């Protein structure tokens, strides 16, 4: 019924009117700035490529983007329940599915925004710090193969990490909907993300077949950028397929639970 846009507008208002959102964005940009300035002070400007610094910062700070987005996603539905506002939100002429969709989309938009902020700020800040009047002899070293354009490499890197980010955010959103507690959802999502991801390398060494179907083996897609996947024989297409199945599962479960649930506080 009616136009869907106002619902997204509402959810955006609930994200961006809160100081924490801007604190997170601020921290991200500030960290980019700090690392670049420290590099400028302690490293050598003449022999450093802006691309190397930008890529290094991106790979470290993208984890922060994921954490911040998980925090927002985990709060998305759970906070409406803990504050009791869910009741007034649901008694409008909108189906629960559409209300949930507006929440989900606004969180995905936030994730994209944060990634774009990181991408733009690393490029801009490092161009100012290292790029202006740079020695044309200095080449980016991170791209691996000679002659690869660092900008397109970075775009690919961001593209692949964004896919993982969307899956992770969907997982956090699902936990938020199921547990109705943002603390539990944040904790659980971050535990899976940081805890499991840190020893997934070990699990990947196991010879069992089921390891191939684990979400976390596939969550880091950038393993394909340099051509050394975690498990032998795994391809990008296969990983995307597994992620796709998980994604559909998460979405289906989230919507099912949200539609079925009795709202009582």
């Amino acid at each position, binding site marked *: 019924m009616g136009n869907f846009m106002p619902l997204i507008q509402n959810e955006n208002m609930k994200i961006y009117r809160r100081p924490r959102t801007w604190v997170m964005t601020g921290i991200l940009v500030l960290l980019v700035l700090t690392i670049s300035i420290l590099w400028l002070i302690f490293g050598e400007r003449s022999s450093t490529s802006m691309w190397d610094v930008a890529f290094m910062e991106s790979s470290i700070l993208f984890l922060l983007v994921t954490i911040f987005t998980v925090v927002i996603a985990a709060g998305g539905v759970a906070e409406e329940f803990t504050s009791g506002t869910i009741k007034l939100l*649901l008694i409008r002429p909108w189906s629960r599915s559409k209300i949930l969709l507006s929440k989900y989309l606004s969180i995905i938009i936030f994730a994209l925004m944060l990634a774009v902020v990181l991408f733009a700020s690393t490029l801009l800040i490092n161009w100012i710090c290292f790029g202006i009047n740079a020695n044309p002899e200095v080449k980016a070293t991170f791209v691996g193969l000679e002659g690869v354009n660092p900008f397109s490499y970075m775009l690919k890197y961001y593209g692949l990490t964004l896919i993982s980010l969307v899956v992770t955010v969907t997982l956090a959103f699902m936990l938020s909907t199921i547990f109705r507690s943002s603390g539990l959802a944040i904790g659980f999502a971050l535990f899976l993300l940081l805890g499991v991801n840190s020893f997934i390398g070990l699990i990947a060494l196991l010879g069992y077949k089921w390891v191939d179907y684990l979400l976390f083996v596939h969550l880091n897609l950038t393993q394909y950028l340099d051509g050394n996947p975690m498990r032998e024989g795994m391809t990008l297409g296969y990983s995307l397929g597994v992620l796709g199945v998980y994604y559909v599962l998460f979405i289906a479960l989230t919507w099912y639970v949200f539609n079925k649930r009795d709202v009582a506080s």
Partner: protein
Amino acid sequence: MEQTIVKLHNVTKKIGKRTIIDRLTLDLPLGEVFGFLGPNGSGKTTTIRMMVGLMSLTDGEITIGGHSITKEYEKAIRHVGAIVENPEMYKYLSGYDNLIHYARMIPGITEHRVHEVVKLVGLEGRIRDKVKTYSLGMRQRLGVAQAILHKPQLLILDEPTNGLDPAGIRELRDYLRMLSKDEGIAVFVSSHLLSEMELMCDRVAIIQNGKLIDVRTIKGKDAVTDSSRVVIEVDQQKSAMEVLRAAGFVGEHVGTEAVAVEADKESTAAINASLVAAGIKVYGIRAQVKTLEDQFLEVTGGERIG
């Protein structure tokens, strides 16, 4: 003649093995303030939650404006405004932004209407402040504001007088009466505050342990019974009783210095005359109207949870 807006038919809610609401059937007409009265834990809020689609029904059906709440939710809820339990708002947003939030969800609400509603609930001075700085009474007003924003045909208020000061309660009461009489909407109010319901409602449904026990009219002609209990304070109780008996009334001792009798207006005057004629001093005569509270306790047999 009366137009029914809400129909509850055999509404049943079971959670596990417990039956929370048991075959509740109720019709709400437009233009009335309808009270929903029951002790704590009797199922008032559960019923309201089912009416606004927050809870599913185990059995039975609820229709609002002819649309089933389970099958045509978006159509049924379109003309409903409600506060369910406490009016919880987004604390980090201003009161105004909260209203804009709800206004966006229903097409056709202009900014002018938002301002009109703000003025109506008397929040002009603080509407730009964050809701976390509001008192409970102000939140309650904001809750009413969001409920009437889209000029609903049915207004459901769960314990609306919670946290309001006497002036606020009176204002709300007058406003609800105005809405039901002038705008012809149905107002459904739940409460366990009996005296409040008596002043506010046209009719009251009494619910206990999930069962509808009684529906009573509070105002209007059927509420006023011709005869009522009259208590007469006298100096000689014994002689007064004799006088009453001689006049054909069944008297009753009240304390040591009063008698009570069932009598209408005219016979009260006659009784008074005969008492005075018999040389009995009459200090006071008062009609004892049964309050809703008496009726309520009579019907529910006091409060029992469980």
